């Protein structure tokens, strides 16, 4: 259902989201899920800076993937220098 023109932001310009945008959840696009092997991870942050969707969080307990927005592009898997991130088909998961 279309939103009334008065409610659409002027020229579509909106403040930069400081948190997550609930209106544009992109995790459902994913066909492969990144899985981290915490033993191999050196916390070099290359995956964190390379993620085009800012879906990797550098938490105190280690790297975390935000699966609500991760589209499964696989860049993190590609750039990881120690091979700590693998891509597992989504169909292998129950959820």
């Amino acid at each position, binding site marked *: *259902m*279309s*939103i*009334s*023109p*008065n*409610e*659409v932001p*002027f*020229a*579509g*310009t*909106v*403040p*930069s*989201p400081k948190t997550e945008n609930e*209106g*544009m959840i992109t995790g459902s696009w994913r066909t492969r899920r990144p899985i981290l092997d915490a033993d191999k991870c050196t916390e070099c942050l290359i995956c964190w800076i390379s993620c085009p969707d800012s879906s990797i969080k550098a938490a105190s307990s280690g790297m975390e993937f935000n699966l609500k927005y991760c589209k499964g592009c696989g860049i993190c898997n590609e750039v990881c220098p120690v091979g700590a991130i693998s891509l597992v088909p989504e169909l292998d998961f129950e959820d």
Partner: protein
Amino acid sequence: MGVVKRISGCVATANAVKLADVDVICSYPIRPYTGIMSELARMVADGELDAEFVYGEGEHAQLSVVYGASASGARTFTGSSGVGVTYAMEVYSPISGERLPVQMAIADRTLDPPGDFGSEHTDALCTRDQGWIQGWASNPQEALDMTLMYYRIGEDPRVLLPQYACQDGYFVSHILGEVEIPDAAQVKEFLPPYKNHHVLDVRTPQIIGAQMEPKMGPGMQYQRYVAMEGSRKVIEEVHDEFGRMFGRKYDPWVEEFMTDDAEVAIFIQGGHAETGKTVVRRLRSLGEKVGLVRLRTFRPFPTEQVRNALSKFKAVGTVDNSVNFGISGAAGVLLTEARTALYGLGDKIPTVGFVAGLGGEMITHDEFYKMFMKLKEVAKAGKADKQSYWLPFEL
């Protein structure tokens, strides 16, 4: 008081840009519009104009540079001709969608082929439906005045739309005319500084040109539609005020020339109208009831005003200086727009399309004469036997 000089359309436009005190200019060379940029470059180099002069690596970049500059709150200017205009095609809609009042001068040039340096309205008309205000100047003075008025219209908070200020290549851009360059202080009063609706600034981060969800699409398009339709009132107000301040009164929509009691008329836009007027004057002196209507603003198209202007004649001929292969009526976009304006009236005014002046050829007196003679025939018969004629081959 201003000063009077003999200058070309390009130099007139450059003077208007200087008077508008723009902040950012982005150039890329292509004839004939490039005359505007060379004059502006000189003004910046000589310290006459304090503006950032950016060299784009192409027309797509030119439009992208002014897009960003305008979003940051700068008054901007760019321009192009011919294939340069079409190369930047992707960027026109984002600029109007973002509601940034960028101004672009277009000095017409043919597309390829023939790619000669001649003028044809095809380049600018390709861009006509991208949400920009658009119109044609027919002489250097009008080119200067139009540039100033378009900034004021586009930057009005009720409009916030970019503008194409068009002039025929060579016929207007490179032929000298007497131009009154207004006083800078007076222009400043007419054109207050540009205030952006939402300024791109690191202190208030924003997403500009964000990917929208489908359900927001219709509303966004509707906003732009309302702005374009609403600009009609502002266009009239600004022309009124300009006339009061500078003494040059223009009808914002159509200029009627010797249309009183005229039975047939030519409907045309741009510099070729000047040639048409000399033929009208000559035919009038021979007792022929002919007239000419020149369209000044193409977008938004003045449907009502064109209907009122054209509905009083027994036959109307439109002159298209552009190619629209396969178009309804087999002439050009002026014919289809004029017919659309007239159709709702229920009158049966025969309209005939003429395609003329292609490839940068001038439309000669003889050709205008033949058009008027054809229109007389059509008026007498009450109908046309053919939708349109390509000159010089078919008439």
